[in-house]
């Protein structure tokens, strides 16, 4: 059964102004099955209607959001489909809120290693936007969670890639390819994720000097928030006690994960890991930041875009990227949200054309106007 309702103009664009179809806003549809979604997308391709996809709606400003005629809401394709804790895998609907999944997994001392402070984010949304956990320096990013993906292509084909086992090299790695693809290859309907068991002990140690963090070889995370450094540890009680002692700071039991900084402008600074501290030193005055040391991942927020262009020049010259994840209308003053186009635009275009021949899924949202 299709549920249709009219949205209000701009309500999915989060400030980037979305002009909808006749009648004020884009049409909104919440498919309750994969088949329904396939029918919707097939029709959208035939009618050449631009589609935006919404999970929790937390990253709708990311990239260059399209002027969509149709908004597909994924909330109904949700829930845990298959989970045997022994297998360290979970298969879950794309519309499942990350918080809901992680809390279910935590009951059996497991985690999908998705973002720790997800708000309303869904599993499919986090994957499509390519957002990663704060534990990524130790446990790697969201792409490393991906074992299987089911998606519906722009022209309504239902396709699966990968499999529900922790190790698989059967065919091309479609599951990892959809991470950060903003739905350009298809709307993700479900995924199988690799899980990680949570060890019995955990602690957070506040340290004064980032150099002190090096006394532990492979901590779970070293985070720096506006100058305050905390080391996150987990393991057997023996290990956590020993590592805490080695770090020599103030120890708190458990983990209280910080949220990404909030502001009308939100940025993602990506640099080679060794340049994390130099990059922090170059952030324009007044920017709040949360840096994941060892991963070169700095999340920042500001009230304006002053200094962003200069920062981007340095970051790109260093082999990284400065991405505007959210900005008020016109606030970027012509600055491209992604920065310089990545290599291989032509092959990316050809790839997308194979999965979304009518180019109706989030056109123009990716770097280089793809």
């Amino acid at each position, binding site marked *: 059964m299709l549920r249709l309702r009219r949205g209000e103009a701009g309500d999915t664009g989060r400030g980037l102004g979305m002009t909808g179809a006749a009648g004020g806003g884009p049409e909104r549809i919440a498919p309750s099955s994969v088949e329904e979604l396939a029918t919707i997308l097939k029709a959208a391709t035939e009618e050449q209607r631009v589609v935006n996809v919404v999970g929790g709606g937390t990253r709708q400003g990311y990239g260059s959001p399209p002027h969509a005629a149709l908004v597909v809401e994924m909330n109904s394709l949700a829930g845990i489909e298959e989970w*045997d804790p*022994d297998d360290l*895998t979970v298969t879950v609907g794309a519309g499942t809120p990350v918080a809901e999944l992680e809390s279910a997994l935590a009951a059996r*001392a497991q985690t999908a290693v998705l973002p720790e402070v997800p708000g309303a984010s869904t599993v499919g949304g986090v994957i499509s936007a390519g957002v990663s956990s704060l534990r990524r320096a130790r446990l*790697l*990013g969201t*792409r490393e969670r991906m074992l299987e993906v089911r998606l519906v292509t722009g022209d309504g*084909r239902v396709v*699966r*890639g990968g*499999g*529900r*086992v*922790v*190790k*698989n*090299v*059967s*065919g091309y*790695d*479609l599951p*990892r*390819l959809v*991470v*950060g*693809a903003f739905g350009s290859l298809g709307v993700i309907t479900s995924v199988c994720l690799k899980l*990680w*068991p*949570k*060890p*019995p002990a955990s602690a957070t140690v506040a340290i004064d000097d980032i150099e002190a963090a090096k006394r*532990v*070889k*492979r901590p779970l995370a070293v985070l720096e928030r506006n100058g305050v450094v905390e080391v996150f540890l987990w*393991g057997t009680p*023996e*290990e956590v006690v*020993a*590592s805490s002692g080695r770090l020599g700071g103030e120890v708190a039991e458990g983990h209280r994960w910080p949220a990404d900084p909030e502001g009308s402008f939100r940025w*993602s600074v*990506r*640099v080679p*890991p060794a340049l994390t501290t130099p990059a922090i030193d170059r952030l324009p005055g007044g920017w709040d930041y949360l840096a994941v040391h060892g991963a*070169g*991942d700095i999340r920042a927020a500001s009230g304006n875009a002053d200094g962003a262009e200069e920062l981007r020049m340095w970051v790109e010259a260093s*082999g*990284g990227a400065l*991405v505007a994840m959210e900005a008020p209308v016109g606030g970027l003053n012509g600055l491209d949200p992604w*920065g310089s*186009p*990545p*290599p*291989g635009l032509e*092959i*990316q275009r050809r*790839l*997308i*054309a*194979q999965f979304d021949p009518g180019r109706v899924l989030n056109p123009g949202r990716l770097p*280089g106007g793809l």
Partner: protein
Amino acid sequence: MLEEPVELYLYSRDASLMHGQATCVVFPQTTEDVAEVVRVAEKHGVPIVARGAGTGLAAGAIPVDGGIVLSTTAMNHIEIDVENRTAWVGAGVINLDLSNEAEPFGLSFAPDPSSQSACTIGGNVANNSGGAHCLAEGATTSHVLGLEVVLAGGETLVLGGQAPDMPGLDLKGLLVGSEGTLGVVTRALVRLLPIEADVRTLLLDFEELEGATRTVSDVIASGLVPAALEIMDQKMTTAVENWLRAGLPCDCAAILLAEVVGEPEAVEAEAALISRIGLANGARDVQVARDEAERAILWKGRKSAFGAVAQVSPNYYLHDTVVPRSRLVETMGEIQAIADRYELDVYNVFHAGDGNLHPLMAFDASDPVMMDKVHRAGEEMVVACLSRGGALSGEHGIGLEKRDMMRADFTELDLDAQARLKEAFDPAGVFNPAKVLPEGSRCFDFGGVKREIPDGAWV
């Protein structure tokens, strides 16, 4: 460039039981050389099969019906960035050479296939190779941050980089594991890991296989992800012990090799925990390697297991499949039943933490009846894994060996999507044709050149 028949014959094979026919073999020195080879091959409509050391077991590196074999061995430069813990590595660099080169800096490359003293980084990238230590650290794809690749038309791209999440589609991630069918990887930017402060390697022996697999599950349920959890059955242990004389217990149903790494306090506590769990699950004995020499010999036994079978039979056929870990025991029973039905000897050594099975059938290939039996039994074993929610291959790849079995795992639309992906990269079908995807994967694909497997390719 090689053109002598004997040399061409050597380069027409890999470590599988199949062979093809190379037209010529080239040894490019630079990325520009590779681009030139690609342009020439396209101009003349000749396929290119990139090849590292040829240790692949799925016939991914054999030229099926003629073609240029592009050996990457001359591209063997290593450039380590200690600060960022990365290295740019030529495709022809041998896996173990990279770790040896990184060792003085306290770093190592995590993927460690059993063939690591011969196999190349290019081959590891092509196959997304695993190894005994990918339970905790992931397979090759988790360690590739960037790639330099030559695509159709000789276009050279540098993808990814040291910074995370480079914007745009993750093309380098797609190239990893694509078995040379999308382009030729010339260099890889890989992640290196700090060498851990301490390590403990344990050997547990069990009277029942189930005790060993239950131990693996319980260890992980306790919140621990050991660096490695490997099981060998009695037959395999006996074969290894006959050759290695390491004092392995041959009178038990299975041995479990477990390894933990980390801070000294961590490995001490974790080794104690694994021992306790093992004993609770019926382990007769727990041995802990006392020094590096003892540890090395345990690993030598594990990594040389396949070679040890040579004393039993002149040939072996090694399979590679995966099942959800919770279904290991019943799958092993089924594999034994299949082997019994075909009156074949099956040896088992596997990555238990990953549910990655490697049933090995020892036989004499000069007997054509045996050869046929081995193929049929092998196929049944793979199907048995698939029917339990498993996968066709965990780390060896699809190549030519399993491409026709892809239909057992994927729907027509799934394969069509994969074929479209290939088409986007390689519209002329120059790169390693006939591998990975079965003929006719592209739905409504009536055009194009048919590429049949030549007669005798299975021997």
